[in-house]
Structure formats: C-alpha cells, structure tokens
C-alpha cells in the first residue's frame, strides 16, 4: 500500500477529526450504546445506512477524477445529503484541515489538486494525486473512520481498548460491503437513510456535558 496514503489516513494526521463522534456521544449518554455489541451495531448501522452510503462513495468518486469535469458536484450533493448541521459542518471543517495539511506536506504532488470542500472528496482527490489506487484509497478512508469511532467509544463508554478494537473487527464485513458498494457507486448512488442516527447527531449540541463537537 502507498506509504503516503497510510500517512494521510492515520489518526495522527492533523485534520481535527478526533473531536467528532458522529452521533455516538448522544447514544452513549442516552444509554442506547453501552456494550461492545451495541457499539458494533452502531458501526454497522452507520456503514450500511448512514456515513458509509454518503462519504465512502464520495471518496471513491473523487478519486476517479470526476471533480475536474464537475468540480462542485460531489460537495454540493454532500451539502444536501448531510441533513444535520453538526456532521455537515464537521465534514467541511475536517475537509479544509486535511486539504491544508496535505498541501503543506506535498505541494508539488498536489499542485493541480481540484477544489474540494467536504472531507470525503478531499481525501479521495488527495489520495489519487499521491498515487494511491482507488481500492486502497477507499479502504484506508473507511478504516480511518471505523477506528476513529472506536477510539471515541473508549472515551465515551466503559469499554477497554481491546473490546473496542474487537467491535471494529466484528464490523469488518459491513466495512467490506461498504467499500465494495463505494467502488461501484455512481453519483446517483449517494444517499442513505438513517433517521435515528440523524436525530442522535442533531440532539448532541443539547447535551449538558459534551466531550465531542458532534
């Protein structure tokens, strides 16, 4: 796998992604996600019906170079599909931070990077410019999301690091399905329907005490 792709997808890459939980915080505070099994269900639900149906295919499509012909199409679509303000703004902020950091690190390789706003298209376009394959790009992107959520879970739940990683492993089939779907996707496939997850994300700003920004 491309070394630069591993660096881009690493949790230490300075994009600010560690401050967002994608609704997990609300669900843990409500007591709806308390165990490793419930965490796995959350992860599989996001991959099959929520995040995985929007961001993973957007990343895959950005890799193909479609942004050169239609620079804002994916970003505009994500603006519309991300119904809840918190996750929508988080996607834009992390995208901007990732883009800035990547341009600082690889200015020559990214000299012709097309304009991007959201995290997923930015990741896909940057990874393509750095020479990563499409399959590796989407795999790294999904893995990065998955491990970021289980890292958040260890702070939000009574859950050890090994149990959190086990939940990620058990969500592996859902992650693979998400990746395969993303690699076959066209623009019209971007969607998702996860009202309970959206409601959880929408309620997060109202929590009395919050660890994460979303």
């Amino acid at each position, binding site marked *: 796998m491309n070394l630069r792709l591993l660096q881009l997808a690493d949790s*230490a890459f*300075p994009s600010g992604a*560690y401050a*967002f939980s994608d609704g997990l915080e609300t669900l843990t505070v409500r007591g709806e996600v308390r165990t490793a099994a419930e965490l796995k269900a959350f992860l599989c639900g996001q991959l099959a019906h929520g995040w995985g149906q929007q961001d993973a295919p957007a990343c895959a499509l950005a890799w193909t170079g479609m942004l050169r012909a239609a620079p804002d199409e994916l970003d505009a679509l994500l603006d519309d599909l991300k119904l809840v303000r918190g996750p929508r703004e988080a996607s834009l902020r992390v995208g901007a931070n990732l883009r800035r950091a990547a341009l600082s690190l690889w200015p020559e390789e990214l000299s012709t990077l097309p304009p991007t706003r959201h995290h997923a298209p930015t990741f896909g376009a940057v990874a393509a410019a750095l020479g990563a394959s499409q399959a590796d790009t989407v795999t790294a992107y999904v893995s990065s999301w998955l491990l970021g959520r289980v890292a958040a879970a260890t*702070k939000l739940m009574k859950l050890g690091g090994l149990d959190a990683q086990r939940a990620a492993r058990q969500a592996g089939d859902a992650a693979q399905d998400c990746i395969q779907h993303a690699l076959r996707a066209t623009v019209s496939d971007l969607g998702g329907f996860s009202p309970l997850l959206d409601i959880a994300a929408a309620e997060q700003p109202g929590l009395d005490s*919050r*660890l994460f920004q979303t």
Partner: protein
Amino acid sequence: MRQTGAMSPETPSHLPLKIGVGGPVGSGKTALLEVLCRELRGRYDLAVITNDIYTFEDQRILTAAAALSPERIRGVQTGGCPHTAIREDTSLNQEAVEALQSEFPGLDLIFIESGGDNLASSFSPELVDAWLFVLDVSGGEKVPRKGGPGVRYSDLLIINKIDLAPNVGADLRVMDADARAQRSVLHQSGRSEPGPEQIRPFIFTDLKRGLGVRDVIAWIEHDLLFKPVAPPRIGLV
C-alpha cells in the same frame, strides 16, 4: 533577552502574538486570563481561545466576568484530547485563530488556554509563539521537582496560590530552588566548556490578590513584545 520561543523583532506587526496558557485543572489558568485581559485590554487589541474538555465553561466564566467582549472569546471543544488540540493536531485551534484574525485584523495578542491537563502537556510551536504553564501550591511542594515539559521548558512558569502554602505544608523556598534547578539552561559557549547559566523565568503569584501579576505582564511586554520596560522578577526575590 531571555530564552523564549517568542516572535522575533522582524515579525510583521499585523500578526498577533499568540501565547499558550497551560497547566493542570484548577491551577488558575482562567483566573490568570481574566486578570490579564482586564489589565491589558486598554493597551492591546486582545482575544482569547479557551479549550474545554466537556463544556464551554472557561469561555462562559471569562464572558461573565466581562474580561473581554463575548465575540473576542472563542471556545474550542477537544474531543477529550486537550493535549492533542494544543500539541499534535492543532487544526481546531488554528481554525479559531484564523477566525479571530479575520474578524479582528488589528489583534495584538491572542491567548490560547488549554483544557486542564497534566504535567506532560506542552504547546506546538506551530500554534503559539510562546507559552506559559500554571501550577498551584496546593498541588504540593513537590510538583516543580517532578519536572515535565511545562515545568522545564515552558517560556514562563507560574506558581500560583502562594497564600495556600502554610495550609498545605509547602515551603516556597523549596519550590523556588526546585523550579530554579528544573529551569536552568546551560548555554554552550561554542567551545567545550559550558557558558553562563540562565534560568528560564518563573514567577510566584497569588492571582486572587493580584500578587505577581505585574511580573507576568512584564514578561509579556519585556520578553515577548520587546517593550522598553523592566524585566520580570524571577522566583522569590
């Protein structure tokens, strides 16, 4: 000039000086910012960024204290990673800095307060020009002796709540000697023998009563802004 990570005299004047304020929970970081804002807001164009772990409590306290107008106080939530937000991945704080600079282009100073953390925390030089670390005496006489990046390498160490020393059995002379030892810098003279010893600045304060505040301001103005003012007094004098 003292050994600090401060901006050089050539730094363009329109760029604000960014000062990190770190230290354990309850040591007096927010109290320090409150008094600094009150003392400096008439002379400098100021803004503050607070990093809270769970809430916007520090932002709320500063706003309620009317230390600055609310739009000059920005809160950043750090996903339970207060040290990450000021050291490894400062992007969330950089966002706040850029937003403030965009809204207030004439800013002279931005204070960036970390979420309460432990002795291992430190600030990235990509985020701040200089940083100070606040300890308090009630943590025990031994704390300066324990060292860590804040005690050793911060540009200014503040040991606060000196009024509590008799209540916790802390001897300020011991803390002074330990801080001095931890913050000693032996500069190489270019030959094999070490050059003269320098002590990174440290100041004892009782912020509730305003003791030591003048020296903290002297550190900012003399050491960081290169103003023609007297330097701060170091340790017990």
